[in-house]
């Protein structure tokens, strides 16, 4: 039992018994040693289920979208990437800072649960792809912090390498690459449902009037869905990588999102979403000196 898990339990026990919050969002062990899952606690007896380990992938800030009108304060455990989600939701006016008590956990990087399937606990497991290029391991917003701050280290380059490969392709080659990917999409919307930037009260894909998108599975509709979502999330993506992790078909969604982030940086300067809650998202306002190549 690691030190962080023990501290998590103490903090949760303290907050709940003092009625400072009536709900704590954290993680617990799931169906296997390589699965940790979200946990909602409203009773002190349940705090001993809280854990933090290398499989706590879920970005709990997503749940704040549903809890926007919760009757009391909510405590939430966040890693570095997750904490950017909290700032994002504050910027989007979905929640107010006072509604959440943020407990930050500096994160040394997580493991890839897909690589652990079939292995026994203790066998080596690859690092999660989404953690390889992490630049914000320490929570950027918190009321208290659990554990020592961590230096950001690049552990791998898979997504960056893919983007580089794509950038060198011709337009046709790129189109064919993404078509092959989108053909595999089963339109389960796990990517959308797990993303903290997807906080629309009624998603465009759920609307019947107008009927933008049905449920037929074909390349055209799959392309429309992914490109639309990438554009809707553009400038607001916090790079938590949950979309790619949640996708049952392993679509390389972060290549799409990170490429857009790269383009936005080239056009509008450095604009990491969810770092500074006061800073306006680049696609949500304009500056007089914005590039006007197309005009």
């Amino acid at each position: 039992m690691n030190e962080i898990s023990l501290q998590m339990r103490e903090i949760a026990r303290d907050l709940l018994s003092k009625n400072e919050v009536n709900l704590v969002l954290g993680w617990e062990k799931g169906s296997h040693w390589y699965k940790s899952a979200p946990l909602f606690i409203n009773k002190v007896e349940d705090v001993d289920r809280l854990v933090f380990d290398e499989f706590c992938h879920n970005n709990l800030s997503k749940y704040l979208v549903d809890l926007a009108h919760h009757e009391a304060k909510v405590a939430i455990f966040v890693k570095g990437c997750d904490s950017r989600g909290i700032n994002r939701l504050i910027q989007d006016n979905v929640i107010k800072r006072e509604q959440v008590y943020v407990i930050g956990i500096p994160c040394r990087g997580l493991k890839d649960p897909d690589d652990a399937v079939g292995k026994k606990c203790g066998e080596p497991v690859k690092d999660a792809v989404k953690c390889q290029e992490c630049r914000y391991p320490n929570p950027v917003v918190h009321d208290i912090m659990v554990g020592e701050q961590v230096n950001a280290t690049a552990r791998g380059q898979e997504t960056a390498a893919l983007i580089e490969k794509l950038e060198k392709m011709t337009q046709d080659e790129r189109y064919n690459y993404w078509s092959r990917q989108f053909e595999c999409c089963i339109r389960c919307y796990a990517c959308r449902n797990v993303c903290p930037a997807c906080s629309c009260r009624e998603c465009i894909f759920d609307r019947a009037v107008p009927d933008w998108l049905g449920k037929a599975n074909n390349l055209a509709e799959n392309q429309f869905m992914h490109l639309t979502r990438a554009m809707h999330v553009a400038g607001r993506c916090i790079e938590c990588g949950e979309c790619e992790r949640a996708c049952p078909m392993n679509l390389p969604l972060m290549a799409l999102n990170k490429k857009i982030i790269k383009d936005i940086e080239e056009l509008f300067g450095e604009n990491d979403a969810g770092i500074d809650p006061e800073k306006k998202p680049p696609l949500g306002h304009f500056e007089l000196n914005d590039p006007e190549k197309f005009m």
Partner: protein
Amino acid sequence: MKTIAKSRLNELLKALDKEYNILVPFKEESVSKFVPWQEGVDPYFEENTLLPPKDILFPQTEKMYGFKVKDKSVEIEELTQEKGQQIIFGLRSCDAYSIDCLDKVFLTKGYEDGFYRQKRENTLLWALACTKPQDSCFCESIGIDPREAVCADVQIYDLGEEWGFTARSAAGEELLQKLEGLFTDKDAEPLPVQGFSITVDMEGVPEKLANMFDHPLWEEVSRKCLGCAACTYLCPTCHCFDIAGSVKGGQGYKFRCWDSCMFSEYTRMAGGHNPRPSKKERVRNRFLHKLYYFVERYGQLLCTGCGRCLAKCPVNMDITAIIRKIKEAQQQ
């Protein structure tokens, strides 16, 4: 048992290919599913496929009829795709059981679904007996025998260096006889099934659920659910579908496509009323359907124990954990 060396599998598939479209499990990068076999396709038998074979008989998108609308006139034309005979080769007991469930849904109770029946009556099932359950498998707890598939036409066994085949239906018998020359007849013992890491006691669960509609456990278990459709689309038995149209300039076609009871607008009526307005109602409905309503209506569980849902759910919603909670629950 009729046997053939594993190295000669291609010969068998080639012979079958003359009259049948064969669908075999195949893995590309990290995704495994059933694909049409042809020379050069190397079937993947190490693990169960990620995508279940249900889309062979119940495609994700299926055209039903075409229509033409001009001024006040409407023309309607049924679209049937004449598919030849096919064999689903190498599906596991869990997926074969799922086809049994789909047969009950689409072919019984008042109406026969023409689109499903046309495919089903031209399909033979060659089921593969499992030897090594995966981390997320629990078919045995559901009452499914990993080595003997229901509604199989031919049962395939892993004999180590060889594959063994036993006919389980008249059609299977006939086909094996036709291919007599390829096989060696011998007595053989199939490899045993290794242990399951997940077991769950299903005893009395449907009966108990009959009185648990208002139980507080649904509020608790539904909180982390994201409301996506990963579980329903990967599930071999889930069969909810939507009907919609594709129209361009007055011409088009009506199709049916997979839908999911987990989507928020699934039961929303024109006018706005929604009998399942929140996640809690939808999650409750999903598990009651799998473990109780289907038992009441068709006499069997709608879960096969394949474990795909709990392996791939982004928040690890675990049907076995929920079943345990149901068993422990105090009656309200």
